């Protein structure tokens, strides 16, 4: 699954930084019929987490009300240099992962 993340490369300790992630995903609601009238199975990214140096700082649980190609934005206090790791999984069991480094200066 293709995704784009936006994390500032550098921040000062204590800064509140904006983190954004966009994932290419159809987010099938489960309510749509296909061309033959059969229901298309629900398939949405149900869980997304972000860990900052191993500590979970953000978790989203999504359902059928979220648009295709969801984009999420949240704020994190920059504490120490390291890495933000994003993991997500959809209803079909497909997993995705993306990581972004951040350098924190005093």
């Amino acid at each position, binding site marked *: 699954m293709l995704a784009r993340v936006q994390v500032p490369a550098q921040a000062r300790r204590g800064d509140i930084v904006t983190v*954004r992630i966009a994932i*290419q995903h159809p987010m099938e609601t489960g309510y749509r019929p296909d061309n033959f009238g059969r229901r298309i199975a629900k398939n949405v990214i149900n869980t997304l987490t972000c860990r900052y140096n191993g500590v979970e700082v953000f978790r989203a649980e999504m359902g059928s009300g979220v648009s*295709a190609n969801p984009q999420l934005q949240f704020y994190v206090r920059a504490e120490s240099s390291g890495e933000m790791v994003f993991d997500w999984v959809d209803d079909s069991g497909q997993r995705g992962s993306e990581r972004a480094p951040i350098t924190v200066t005093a």
Partner: protein
Amino acid sequence: MLTLSAAAAEAPRPQPKSGIEYAGSDVRALQADDFGNPGMLWVARGEKLWNAPAGRSEKSCASCHRDAPTTMKGVATRYPRKDAGGGELLNLEGRINQCRVQQQGADTWRYESEELLSLTAYVAHQSRGMPVNVQINEANRVNFERGRDIYYRRQGQMNLACTHCHERNAGRKLLADTISEGHGNAYPVYRLEWQSAGSLHRRLRACYFGVRAEQPAAGSAELVDLELYLASRARGLRVETPGVRR
């Protein structure tokens, strides 16, 4: 039936207006935000495809064309076009598929497939901000005229031509939407109604459906000719790929 003379069809028009100028502030903001614009996901995928070897030659686009931001800059402003040696009129999608077959020894991508959309978006994106500048010359005049004929030809159960909405009534309302001038300068676009990126031909087919006419296949000669005529109308408008539309 009223027929428009070629002279009337080629009368000077006021400066063309891009579809984005008819869109609401939310859609404009989404298009302007390079991270928030969902079409950038397709551009990002296109960049991966650009560098991925394909076919019997095991060459990638980058093997010959190198650095796309340099070599593909301005390319989309000149399409649809014909090769110097003649041949058929090709839009960007057609050119990419031709390259895949002739240079890479790969199969063509199905029109509207994620791969073809993504690579087209990536290539067109390199021309963002540059004015559309197709040339009508002896080689493509026949296509241009065919495209113009389609544009002014009434068709379908609604008995409408492109001109009736996009020229005579641009800026007015059609149900909840504002009718645009029907320019293709932002394609492939991310269309909110589709919840996906889509090609100009997908949009044109939706118009054919709207006037209840028989839809030509995506990538067909009829739609490429029409695309050439639309590009000539859009001359001077800046490429916006990937655009965002409702």
